[in-house]
């Protein structure tokens, strides 16, 4: 069942009521992040931890690579400086680490969210990509349950309710 709402407040009210009933909420599409929904969906992300370790790995990789190139593999004398010109490595390390973190995090996110270029977009409702707030519920299939949910959505100001028996997609 899909409920379409015109504003954030109606959506949050309905969201809380539906959740209190113990109905599984599949997904909520909003034009901007809404705090109550983010918390209410109970989804935790570990991507920031992943990014930290990519950064650590990237920094060590770049520093190690430059050390290998400048000291071990092909030492060259630049203006009497030591082979290991550590301070000048730092700038490259910062820039390259940012690149590694960005790309690695992007790929991790794409893999976990199963997003890739050319993927067919799953649009639940035409307005979900516009200014409407759309909530997708999974019902247990019984008629009473469906009726009760419909009433909740209606009472809380849903502008449109779509009943679907099968998971959309």
């Amino acid at each position: 069942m899909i409920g379409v709402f015109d504003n954030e407040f109606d959506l949050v009210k309905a969201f809380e009521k539906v959740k209190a009933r113990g109905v599984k909420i599949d997904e909520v599409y909003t034009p901007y992040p809404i705090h109550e929904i983010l918390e209410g969906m109970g989804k935790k992300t570990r991507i920031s931890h992943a990014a930290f370790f990519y950064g650590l790995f990237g920094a060590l990789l770049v520093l190690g690579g430059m050390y290998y190139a400048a000291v071990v593999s092909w030492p060259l004398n630049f203006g009497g400086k030591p082979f290991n010109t550590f301070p000048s490595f730092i700038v490259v390390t910062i820039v390259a680490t940012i690149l590694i973190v960005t790309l690695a995090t992007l790929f991790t996110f794409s893999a976990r969210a199963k997003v890739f270029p050319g993927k067919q977009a799953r649009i639940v409702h035409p307005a979900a990509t516009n200014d409407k707030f759309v909530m997708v519920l999974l019902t247990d299939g019984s008629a009473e349950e469906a009726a009760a949910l419909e009433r909740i959505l209606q009472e809380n100001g849903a502008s449109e309710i779509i009943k679907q028996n099968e998971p959309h997609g």
Partner: protein
Amino acid sequence: MIEEKFVIPKKLKLATYVLIAIGLVSFGWGFVTDPQRSWANYLLNNYLFVSLAVGAAFFISIQYIAQAGWSAAFKRIPEAMAAYLPFAAVFFLLLLFGVHSLYEWSHAEELAHDHLIQHKSPYLNVPFWGIRILLFFGLWILLTKWMRKISLKEDREGGMRYFYQSEHLSKVFIFIVAVSFSAFSVDMLMSLQVHWFSTIFAAKMFISAFLHGAAVITLIVIILHKYGYLQVLNRSHLHDFTRYMFMLSIVWGYFTFSQFMLIWYGNIPEETSYYVHRWHGPFQILFYVSIILNWFIPFLFLMPRSNSRSKLAMVPVIILLIIGQYVELYYEIWPATLHEAKFGLLEIGSWLGFAGLFSLIVITYLAKANLVPKNHPYLEESIHHHF
């Protein structure tokens, strides 16, 4: 609207008096036994607490210009810190008596035979130096007092008018402070080594003032909260305070490293003299200590979300940042004036004295107005700040 009056605890007031007395005794003893070292201490502490006051005033301005909502309830704390400026002005004018103990360019015999000092003397001479102190402090005091007056008027009358006035003044203030504080740090610190120059020095000292100012604002807010004031403080506010410290410590590290790396890489004698002078004994250790305290620890330790929202994690970092600011200034001043790392009771006593005076001024001004601004248009947003 929150009616909240800060009442100065008797014990705290007494403690600040004791600290001031310790400072006076230290300086009295110091000026008799070792005047040059005392002047160095005087300059360090003066500069340190003026940075906090200017950093705090800059903090308020940034909040107004960005029309930040979250910080509205805590505005009185930086305001009270900025109230230190008139006192600092008097102290800096007294520094005129110590100018010959600290600044090589003020010596007539050096001026007579040193071509570089002659070249710089139209700018670096004692009368103009004193005039600049007057001018800078005049501007800072005028603008901060004006903003404070508007803020108190807003408490009584309300309305949007005073908000827009403050915003406008803030815009003026950041331009003035950017130029004047840069010149100020060049006058006070960089000119200690009159032969050396660095174009990023002023920017670095400015960021340092903002960083440590933000850290001290946070500390005062946390202390007030602990003693039952400012109950609106929640974890989201703490996270926002942490963001300032986190972000500024990165900028501080960036500027400090830029200065070092370019001088190290360029290897031009007139630039490297600064680091050559500081590349032995205790000063070499302090170079690393300063980077660890001001950048490395805040950067690594405030990164996790749970740390950045927890007073228990923030307070130690703030204390390390306060020590870090002392180390940074010690690293600037001592090698240039005393040429050796002396640290003893005089240093501790004089810092305590200034800290006592600064605290006394801050608590006095906190008690003068309602602790939470009454009619700030963003007050509601600040109270319900949540993310």
